[in-house]
């Protein structure tokens, strides 16, 4: 049974002269060897939370336990240099006046010269850096500097590795490769890690668990799979891909939408008396079909060419421009949805016929 390496309990931080909380009542725990990604837009509090764990900021209330030890409790907090955390900063912050070796060796304490050398070379080898350790940071490329920063944080064998936007300084080509490498290194060392990013692709490819933050609050912490398929709110859903929300009326056997009739699912939680609901589905959870099958239909409003696929904005309000076989429910507002297609020949004004492979039902006022 694995023990929780880090546990946060109701951590809150409010900066002076600010009305809002930067971090608002966040609690979670991580087991040894897990990689957690903190995802959110700027100002969501993810970096503040990371710094709170590192000890570079101090919370107003709440507790943090690291390796079974309480490191933060209310206004008492262990100084950062006494915590067993390692941190990689966004701009790497390598010490410009020290060599690579000296950078990596900086956090090593209580080792003699031989042991220090061994540890430094071990860690550097682990990160895949092949440069001469007597070089200085300004002589290295961005990717190499990142490896040095990683080695420097890992050399003291911390209990928890913290990374602040570790991939944002890399160009796209390098990024995929580095993401994979970093995950491998962390897993090889069996270390627990928390990384902060605004890029959901980073989170998906590197982390075991993802935590979504908004305005200081933790919205959802789950595996990437669950977050994608069972988002707790439309914000979370939007974060991970284009999704559609269609207002529909509950009817016997299904739902009436402006695009047509959607056959109901057996596990729909709402009874027929409910009224309006939201049907939620991803753009790729649809299939195009022809006029013979039961289908939904709409008209292409906009086409967006995205390289490997095309994105269609399809609207419907049962207007006369639409096909004659449209069975859509008339509603007050026009609704439009996004569909993905690999066919490139769509134009605005075309009629689209499609059906839903999968969808979820949510209350109309669920956020």
């Amino acid at each position: 049974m694995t023990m929780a390496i880090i546990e946060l309990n109701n951590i809150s931080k409010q900066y002076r002269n600010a009305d809002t909380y930067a971090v608002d009542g966040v609690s979670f725990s991580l087991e040894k060897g897990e990689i957690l990604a903190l995802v959110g837009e700027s100002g969501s509090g993810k970096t503040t939370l990371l710094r709170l764990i590192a000890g570079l900021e101090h919370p107003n209330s709440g507790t943090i336990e690291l390796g079974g030890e309480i490191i933060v409790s209310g206004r008492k907090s262990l100084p950062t240099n006494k915590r067993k955390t390692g941190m990689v900063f966004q701009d790497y912050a390598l010490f410009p006046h020290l060599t690579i070796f000296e950078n990596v060796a900086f956090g090593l304490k209580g080792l003699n010269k031989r042991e220090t050398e061994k540890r430094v070379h071990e860690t550097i080898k682990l990160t895949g850096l092949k440069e001469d350790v007597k070089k200085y940071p300004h002589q290295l490329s961005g990717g190499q500097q990142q490896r040095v920063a990683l080695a420097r944080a890992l050399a003291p064998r911390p209990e928890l590795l913290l990374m602040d936007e570790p991939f944002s300084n890399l160009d796209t080509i390098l990024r995929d490769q580095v993401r994979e490498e970093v995950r491998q290194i962390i897993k090889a060392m069996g270390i627990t890690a928390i990384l902060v990013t605004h890029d959901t692709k980073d989170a998906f490819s590197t982390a075991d668990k993802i935590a979504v933050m908004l305005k200081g609050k933790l919205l959802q912490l789950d595996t990437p799979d669950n977050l994608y398929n069972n988002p707790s709110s439309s914000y979370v859903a939007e974060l991970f891909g284009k999704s559609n929300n269609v207002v529909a009326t509950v009817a016997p056997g299904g739902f009436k939408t402006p695009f047509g009739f959607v056959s109901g699912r057996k596990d729909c939680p709402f009874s027929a008396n409910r009224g309006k609901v939201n049907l939620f589905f991803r753009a790729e959870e649809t299939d195009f079909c022809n006029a013979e099958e039961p289908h939904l239909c709409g008209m292409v409003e906009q086409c967006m060419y995205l390289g490997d696929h095309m994105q269609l904005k399809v609207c419907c309000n049962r207007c006369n421009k639409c096909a004659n076989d449209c069975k859509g429910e008339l509603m007050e507002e026009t609704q439009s949805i996004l569909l993905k297609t690999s066919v490139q020949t769509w134009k605005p004004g075309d009629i689209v016929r499609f059906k839903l492979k999968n969808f979820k039902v949510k209350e109309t006022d669920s956020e």
Partner: protein
Amino acid sequence: MAKKTTYWWNKWTGGAIVILLLVLTPVFTILVKLFDKPGEHWRHIASNLLPSYFANSFLLLLGVGFFTFLIGVSMAWLVSVYDFPGRKYFEWLLILPLAFPSYMMAYSYVGILEYTGPVQAFFRNNFDIHFKGAIVDIMNMPGAIFILSISLFPYVYVICRASFTRQSSAMQEAAFLLGSNRMRMFTKIALPMARPAVAGGIALVGMEVLNDYGTVKYFGVDTFTSGIFRAWFSFGDINTAIYLSAILTVIVLALIWLENFQRGSRNWNAGSGGSRPALRIRPKYKSTRRLYTALCLTVLLISFIFPLMQLFYWVSLTWQNVVDSEFGILIFRSFSLAIGSAVAIAVISIFLLYAIRLSPLKWTKHIARTASLGYAIPGAVIAVGVMIPMMGLDRTINWAVSDNMGMILSGTLFILVVAYIVRFMAVGYNAIDAGFQKTGATVNEVARSLGASPLRTLWKIDLPLIKNSIAGAVLLAFVDILKELPLTLILRPFNFHTLATKAFDMATNEMIAESANASLVVVLTGVIPIIVLNNMISRKK
């Protein structure tokens, strides 16, 4: 469970507070004395002299403020915007007058214009024109305004120049495209945007004017500072001197408040600092270009070259009598005192700035302002303000230990060094602050997250990275201390002279030519950091 520590209080914060209180003590002491009774000569001074102190100080501030504005802004504008022969050199040459303390410039000009001076000799020998006395008697208020203006305009010049060059070139280009000509752009855009900086520069000039003693004393102009000296030395009335200091402090604080108020929330760097430096315009006509060169050259000649030549001339006449082993000792003492104090300032500034870096609470930002307060307060006031607690301390020691101890603190170099620190803290503080800002806080955070204690981080990481700023800070403080006169005159131990006080002493005793030896050492020493700093800055470009 490891020991936890409260995070908002540590030994660094505590130390910073202690230092701040020490720096503030002289100012507080003086202000508190406002509510005390002034001495017995107060009534005499109040009715006969106080009005002229106010009037003269006001006139000086107005006159010098106006002329430094005129010269400083025009020179900065020429040098930032136009291209003309010699511009690259004038950029930094126009800072040189700062190496010349005002009172030494006063002596030089009196020498230049007097009967035995070169100007009169020229007229006599070539045109057989004789003057009675000096050509122009500058030993009066207008003369003081003149001298102070030409020696202090570089403050406005430097700040203004920085502001003009920082103004985005895109903004100027936009103004051009919208049809404004050069003059209009200057008055409507560039100058208003530089206003906070210019005001700051003039405020700085104002502080220096109120601080000046040597010039106004020599020219017989009665100001608050000369009044303080008269009360202290001539009347022996310490309480009156303190009371005058208190009034002067209030005026200075009012000036500071005024400058802050008009600046509002704008900072000194208006302008988004475009990626390109501002357009440099090459005037169409050769005569215009030559005119600009001539203007800059004239300013340089009057404010630096002529007085310097006069010094050289006097030294050539007198050095054999003056420069001996005693002179050597004088230089040694002066230098070591200045260097020692400068290093102390640097160390304290590092400590304060590091404390702020470690615990960035709201109020720590005010540390900067407070530590820099000493620079605004006139040297004479600081001297008085430091003296009082010291005497109190001595009296306590006498009472506690034995009556025969006498004065062990007052009248020693220790008190002088303390006063220098209080007065010139801002110089070191600002230079080292700039260094810390440049290296950024991240590197420090990384080191601490790797387990290094704050002290180890300071020693191994922060300090090596700000080496240049520390050197710059020590250099600037050193030069400022070397030039300092009023504070040193009041607090120096018996029979202890610095180059500055020696020059003053000799000039006051009609040995003006001899004084040039000490003056020359001070001026030449002051020129060096200007050249060094200019090299550092231009290398960065």
